[in-house]
């Protein structure tokens, strides 16, 4: 019996294709189309190029964190401290910028440096301290926020909107597209390529899929995990720098608090299994876009914040239920 005899007829091929492009992704694309169409009908400005850019910029920071959250979830880990890391980086970038006599590159360098340090610290605590990733980063959520507040005394720091680099990051455009969106696209593409096309990515999926098997296959799990948390730190720092650029000063808490939940939501909605080994950047980005488009649309329709909460919650559930109905899974026990 050879592999080809079983390769099957045309409809089978289609099923195969769907699995490969991702049933999850197709559903998300469908949901996104519905949201865009709905609000597009209700509001002439919704689908304007202007508003699309607004949505893109609004989701950039969450999007960056969701991208790296995806990586760590695929590894079987989690990082609840991403928001605090971004806040810390924001403050550091602004303070270093100010004390270096308005040197933007130095400010940004310091932020990324601190970010990597914090990320690696997370990784080390988890891997070598044997602390469960959820607990470790929950602790980080509090601790890094505290550090950001301490060094800033809880106040917004510095002012960067007299610097051309920060202005460019926060408001500039390249080829008609805001710089922020470019950064998200760049980071997401790089991570996607890493995950899908390199052996490093394969190993990351392997670690999350079955860590014992990964170890017996010779993968240096510890090194990978620490590196992944380091990567998160670096990207969270970029998010923090953008936060500074966008708001004009280093924000210890505001603008970054709660982003962990948004990032995890996006990753989970995008198809990451929280037990690891499954997921991808495509799904996560679609989820980020969906949530951003939804929020923008609801606000544009002047739905009040309370209704928005109800609507967002319900829509999230409805989207997933429909998705699952399509896949015809049996309803027993907890879904992954």
């Amino acid at each position, binding site marked *: 019996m050879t592999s080809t005899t079983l390769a099957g007829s045309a409809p089978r091929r289609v099923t195969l294709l769907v699995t490969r492009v991702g049933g999850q992704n197709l559903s998300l694309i469908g949901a996104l189309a519905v949201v865009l169409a709905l609000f597009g009908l209700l*509001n002439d*400005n*919704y689908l*304007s190029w*202007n*508003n699309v*850019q*607004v*949505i893109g*910029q*609004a989701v950039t*920071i969450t999007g960056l964190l969701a991208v790296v959250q995806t990586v760590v979830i695929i590894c079987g880990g989690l990082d609840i401290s991403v928001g605090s890391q971004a806040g810390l980086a924001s403050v550091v970038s602004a303070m270093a910028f100010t004390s270096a006599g308005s040197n933007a590159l130095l400010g940004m360098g310091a932020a990324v440096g601190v970010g990597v340090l914090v990320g690696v610290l997370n990784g080390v605590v988890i891997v070598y301290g044997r602390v469960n990733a959820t607990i470790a980063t929950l602790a980080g959520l509090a601790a890094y926020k505290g550090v950001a*507040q301490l060094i800033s005394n*809880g*106040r*917004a720091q*510095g*002012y960067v*909107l007299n610097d*051309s680099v920060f*202005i*460019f*990051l*926060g*408001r*500039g*455009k390249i080829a008609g597209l805001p*710089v922020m969106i470019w950064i998200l696209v760049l980071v997401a593409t790089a991570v996607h390529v890493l995950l899908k096309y390199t052996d490093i990515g394969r190993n990351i999926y392997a670690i999350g899929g079955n860590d014992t098997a990964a170890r017996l296959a010779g993968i240096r799990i510890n090194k990978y995990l620490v590196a992944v948390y380091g990567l998160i730190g670096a990207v969270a720092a970029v998010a923090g720098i953008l*936060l500074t650029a*966008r*708001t*004009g*000063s280093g*924000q*210890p*808490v*505001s*603008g*970054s*608090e*709660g982003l962990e939940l948004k990032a995890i939501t996006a990753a989970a909605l995008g198809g990451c299994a929280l037990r690891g080994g499954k997921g991808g950047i495509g799904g996560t980005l679609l989820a980020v876009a969906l949530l951003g488009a939804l929020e*923008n649309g609801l*606000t*544009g329709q*002047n739905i*009040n*914040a*309370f209704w928005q909460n109800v609507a967002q919650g319900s829509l999230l559930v409805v989207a997933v239920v429909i998705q699952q109905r399509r896949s015809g899974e049996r309803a027993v026990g907890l879904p992954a």
Partner: protein
Amino acid sequence: STGRESTGNAGDTGATVSGKISLTYLQKQGDQEYFIGEAAGAKAKAAELGIDLKVVNLGNDANKTVSEVQSAIAQKSNGLIIVVPDPAVGPQVVQTARDAKIALLTSDDQICTTGPDPSACSADSLVPRIGFSGAQMGGEVGKRAAEEFKKSGWNPAETRIISAWKQDVTVCGDRVKAAKEAFGSAAGTGVQNIDVATDNTPTGAQDKIAATVTANAGVKHWVVWGCNDENVQGGVTALQNAGFSADNVIGVGLGAYLACKGWGSGKPSGMKAALFINGSDVGALAVQTMYDRLRNGKDFPKEAFAPTKMVDAATWQASGVKCS
């Protein structure tokens, strides 16, 4: 583009709008009682004037502030009224509004065109504003607390002041600071102060203040103030639970929306007074001011204040405090 095209002073052209006016009111902490009142006042006024008003909750999120300002512009709003979660984001908001040539008015909290700190801002760089002043509110609270304190005849050595607020909310810090200063100058004597870090919720404040009270066992009398009614109410309840009778507690609230509940029950309360600030007045005034500017070309005043009023168990009903 580099993003710096329009740093000049172009912006709002001062032109009037002839068609239907559409406004966006962006508020920090939109799920908090005070701001809910403010939104209600704004909506009522908008309906009365026949204009289109969107209210957006910014939470405490400086980043969302920028997003929502951009979004309002993309949705072709004619004017923005904003209460920023953090004044540091002010210049970015101003810049974005200017780029879009759209009228901008602030309510409650000030923002500065040229830098993050309104208190270090030259008067002509401050964005026109409707509201109360944090320093003034805090001052009223401190003054009233000092009056109550003098009336009580407590021994300062046996008395402590609790200042309860969420320490990373800068406007809270301003109020508390003003209250301390006003109390200091009005009470004549110094009373030791204890800062209590809370999360601005009544239970959070209650737990923290309860811990503080037991840790300071020798104290006989307490003065409590804070960022808002939640903090003071939590503190008064904690003291009550710790066995302090109402006449050993001076709570001065800020908002009156929780203080009123205890007064309504007619029992003696540690909550001696509260500064009633009616958000709905501010909301209505802000919308009216924007309307005048957009419809009639009337310039914004630099600053306009809605009235505040110190109320207590005897006067709250007559002063128009509504208790839900």
